[in-house]
Structures are given as structure tokens and as C-alpha cells.
């Protein structure tokens, strides 16, 4: 797999080439200004056919502007975008026919009921199957509330209806901005499984923006990390972790008698030259910080000689930790 760091000066020539897939979305050196402020600054990335890409970054990073440019409703000042083989600026209606979009607010009509909203958008998207709105209402668990005005829906219900709206015309590309915000755990699980199923079974290409990074980990294959409109890095999680290595942190559930106060840090040597820092956590957990993940087996072996080890969880390699390393690194640059 490829991995490319693009700090400060991304450009077409440095665009990562997709391996083993056709690029359905191509964003090449795109810039968008609002007045003096650059919302997107030379952003480049590609999304392969059927891939689920996580577009992540802090608030104001340019994610929503990027999604809007992909839809052809915001015009870039520079650069080139292709979505499903069309230029959103020139062939916007063709792009919008091919994509399903879920915006942060879901943009539903509050004075229409759930089913009326779907029927209305079915007309706008030219959906010929008259059962499609009801089918989606059932699929997203809204059958009981389908005749209730959307203004009376909870945030989670609106989000589910918004997702149903995005899927009405069976799009080949989905652009989802915060699809799980406001959902309860069961709703989050359902939405993420549906996204994964659409990609797996129907080959739908998905771009997902979210702040809840651990949720993305379960569905996304690749990520583009953006900040201040620029791509800080892109690649799979392991590629991002490798390119931005951090200390190896493991949480061990053990009855090892570590004699330290809660919240204080113990610096020690596990023998054989394994230096570590340890911190006691609640529920018989000890957090060890090691120089590298190669030291983990040695540490576990050492602990097992004198105590029982119930579980070992590797931390610091998850998306959230890698993301913080990346964005904090960018702050320091």
C-alpha cells in the first residue's frame, strides 16, 4: 500500500497513485478562499472505487467545504475535482445524481413528515420505485414515526432519515458529514454496519467525515488528515502510525504488586535493558510506556514470572492517538 505525507506543499505531481483500484474521486491541488481566509489550501487526494475514506481533522479544517466542492455547490478557486468521471463545476447535476449526501444538519423539511420528506426527495432524485421511501423508512427503524412531522424528530431520528434520504436513489458514491452525531449506541452501530455493507456488497464509494475517530476505525480503509485546509498525511492507519511513530503504550490487567500511588509515574527497568514508565489505573490496570512495541512481549514475559496477567491492550496505535500525534506535530511545525 502507498503512503504519502503531504505537508504544506501538496500538488498534482505529489498526488498518491491508487494501487489496484480506479479513482472515483480525484481532488487535485484544490484551493478555496472565503474572503481573506483559506478554507482549503492546495488539497489533493483520491478515493478508489468501493473504498471508505475517512476525512478527518479539527473543526474549521476544511472538511465541509471539501464535501461541498465535491457536490459542485461550492466553486474552488484553484485546482481540479473529478467525481464519478464528472467535473462538479461543469456537470454538477450529473455529479449530484451519482452521489448521496448527508450534511451535518440533514437539511430536512420540518413541516413535512418523515415519509413526506423522503417522497419529496424521491421526486427530486427521479426515483421510480414508489416503494423505495417506505422501504428505507423500515430499514432505518422509523416506521413508527413516519407520519410524524420531522420538526418533532429527535436528532438521532433526523440523522437516520437524512441517511435514508442520501440512499434514496441508490447512489454509487456517498459523502457523509458526521453521520453518527446525535445517535445512540445502537443507532451508531446500525449506521456504521450499513455503511460497511453498502461498500462491501454494493461497491459504494464512501467519504466519511467524523470527529468520533474510534468509530471510523471500524469502517474506514484509508484516511486523509487535514488541518487548516491542507492534507497533513494520508494512508491506512498502520501507514499513518508508521510515519508518525510514538511511544508504545500498553495497558495490562494484572495483579502485579506495583507499589506506586495512583496518578504518579514510576520509572523502572524490567530487566534485560527494558526501560519503562508505569502508571496505575483503576480496575487493576497498569499502563506501561515502552520505547517500542518490540519490548511488549519481553515485558509480558517478565510480568508473568511473578504475577498473573489477565489482558494486554496495545494503546497509541489507534486512530485517535495517531491523529493527535499528527495534528500536534503540525502545531509544532
Amino acid at each position, binding site marked *: 500500500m502507498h503512503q504519502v505525507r503531504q505537508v504544506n506543499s501538496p500538488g498534482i505531481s505529489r498526488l498518491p497513485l491508487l494501487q489496484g483500484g480506479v479513482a472515483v474521486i480525484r481532488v487535485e491541488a484544490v484551493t478555496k478562499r472565503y474572503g481573506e481566509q483559506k478554507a482549503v489550501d492546495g488539497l489533493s487526494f483520491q478515493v478508489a472505487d468501493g473504498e471508505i475514506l475517512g476525512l478527518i481533522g479539527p473543526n474549521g479544517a476544511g472538511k465541509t467545504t471539501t464535501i461541498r466542492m465535491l457536490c459542485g*455547490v461550492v466553486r474552488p478557486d484553484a485546482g481540479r475535482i473529478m467525481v464519478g468521471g464528472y467535473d462538479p463545476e461543469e456537470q454538477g447535476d450529473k455529479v*449530484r445524481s451519482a452521489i448521496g449526501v448527508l450534511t451535518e444538519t440533514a437539511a430536512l423539511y*420540518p413541516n*413535512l413528515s418523515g415519509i413526506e420528506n423522503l417522497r419529496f426527495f424521491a421526486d427530486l432524485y427521479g426515483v421510480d420505485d414508489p416503494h423505495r421511501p417506505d422501504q428505507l423508512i423500515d430499514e432505518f427503524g422509523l416506521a413508527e414515526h413516519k407520519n410524524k412531522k420531522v420538526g418533532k424528530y429527535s436528532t438521532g431520528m433526523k440523522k437516520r432519515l437524512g441517511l435514508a434520504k442520501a440512499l434514496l436513489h441508490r447512489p454509487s458514491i456517498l459523502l457523509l458529514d458526521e453521520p453518527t452525531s446525535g445517535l445512540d449506541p445502537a443507532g451508531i452501530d446500525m449506521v456504521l454496519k450499513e455503511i460497511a455493507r453498502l461498500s462491501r456488497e454494493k461497491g459504494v464509494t464512501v467519504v466519511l467525515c467524523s470527529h468520533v475517530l474510534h468509530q471510523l476505525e471500524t469502517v474506514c480503509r484509508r484516511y486523509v488528515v487535514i488541518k487548516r485546509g491542507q492534507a497533513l498525511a494520508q494512508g491506512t492507519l498502520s501507514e499513518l502510525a508508521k510515519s508518525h511513530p510514538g511511544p508504545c503504550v500498553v495497558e495490562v490487567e494484572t495483579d502485579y504488586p506495583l507499589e506506586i500511588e495512583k496518578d504518579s509515574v514510576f520509572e523502572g527497568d524490567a530487566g534485560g535493558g527494558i526501560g519503562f514508565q508505569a502508571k496505575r489505573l483503576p480496575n487493576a490496570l497498569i499502563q506501561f510506556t515502552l520505547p517500542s512495541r518490540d519490548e511488549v512481549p519481553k515485558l509480558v514475559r517478565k510480568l508473568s514470572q511473578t504475577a498473573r496477567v489477565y489482558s494486554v491492550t496495545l494503546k497509541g496505535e489507534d486512530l485517535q492517538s495517531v491523529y493527535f500525534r499528527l495534528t500536534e506535530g503540525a502545531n509544532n511545525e
Partner: protein
Amino acid sequence: MNRRAVVAIARKDIKSITANIQVWLPMLILPIVFSVLLPAVVVLSARASQGDTAQFMQVISGMLERLPESSLTRIISSFETDQQKVAYMMLNYFLSPFFLMIPLMAASTVSIDSFVGEKERGTFEGLLLTPVSMRSIFTAKVLAAFLPAIVVSLVSFVLFAICANVFTWPILGRISFPHINWAPLVLLVMPAISVFAILINVFISARVTTFQAGYQLGALLVLPLVAIMIGQFTGFMLLDTRVLLAVGIILSILDYVLLRIIVRKLDRAWLFESQVR
């Protein structure tokens, strides 16, 4: 043009009128005031013209003299009493500019709601993200404002005709409304002024952020009507059939020009960036 989408958007917009009291209340109050209360006031003032109201009659007679010779003046002259002349003249002549306020206000209220309302409710984004062309969206929005405005105006006209004839029957003893002058007014000026109000409001809506602001600016459209009323009362500009035909034709030309300008200027990205936060 995507006919299915046009019908869906127009139907949705018309439905939203009934859901919003800010929209339907002014649309109902004004026609009732103009169609029921105005003829009642006219009859009362005609009755009051009996006895020691010589001054009032002088004013009316002065206006009558300034009117050019027409079928209207001939009919008015054929009445025997001042009371009859006043009643006929007020109903058939003075109230016509008042009546134009109905399509103007109705079209303004609905058109502001259909554009600014989308923005206020955060739904414009969803509409612009669909594969429906700007031309289709615009056509649907204009239709959604035009149809209710015309229906309200025509219903008001029928209601006004019934009330006018019922109230004046004891004085005139015959069907006295409408005079032929009302034909160009109802068939040409009313639709033309509705479209004009809608198009002007589309311009305003693209530049304001709230329904109230749009409504206040849109209300400025009443000013030319006030000028016509003053002209009518002072005899400066008399709305006879020829003047009404001319007004209707000029408004229709203005509508066509405005329509061409708006359709050429309709830009999804510009609208999105100016309307969606």
C-alpha cells in the same frame, strides 16, 4: 426542465404556506378586508352622502367632472341620485388600485417565504444538493408563489363582487359590479403584478437573511400602488380601460426582462455561498 421536480417543489412550497401562520394570516386578512369590509364602508359612505353632506358631494362631483367621457361616466350620469352615483363610482372606480394590493401582498408573502424560509429552516442546502437544475427550482418557486396569489386574488374578486352587489342592491336596485374596466385589471394587471412582485422578491430574498427583513423590503412594492391611488383620487392618473391595458402591458414587459435577467444570473454556487452557512 424537470417537470416532476418542479411539481414536487411547488406542491411542497404551497403546502408549507398552510403550516406557517406568518404566511397565511396576512394572505387571508387582506382579502377579507378588501372584499367584505371595503364594499360595506362604501355603502355606508354612500348612505351618509344624503342630507347635510354637501361638501363630500362637491368633492365627488369635482372628480366626476375631471373623468374623461367614457362608458363609466355615462353610467354614473344615468343615475338619478347622488347616493347612487357615489356608490357606483366608489365601487367601480376608486377601489381598483386597492384591489391590486391583494395579488401584490399575496405574491410577496409566499415568494419571500419560499426563498428566505428555506434559508431560515436550513433546508436550502438540501435542495441545492439535489440534481435539479436551477431553472427548474426557480420555475417551481415562481409557480408556488404565483398560483396561490392568483387563486386568492380571484376568490377575493368574486367575494368582492358578491358583497358589492348585495350591499348596493338597496341603493341601486340592480347588479352594478363589475364595470368593463375590471376586465383588463383582473385578466392582465393582476397576473402581471403578481409575477412582478415575485421576481422582485426573489432578488430581495437572495440578499436578506430573515423572513422579517424580506417582508419589510418587499412591502416597499406597495409604494407605486399608493402613487396610483393618489393619482386616482386627485384625477392625475385615471385608471380607465386604456390606462389599465397599458399598465398591464408595461408590467408584462418588465416581467419578461426581469425573468431573463434572473434566469441568466441564477448560479448555484453563488446562491449556495450567499444563502447557506
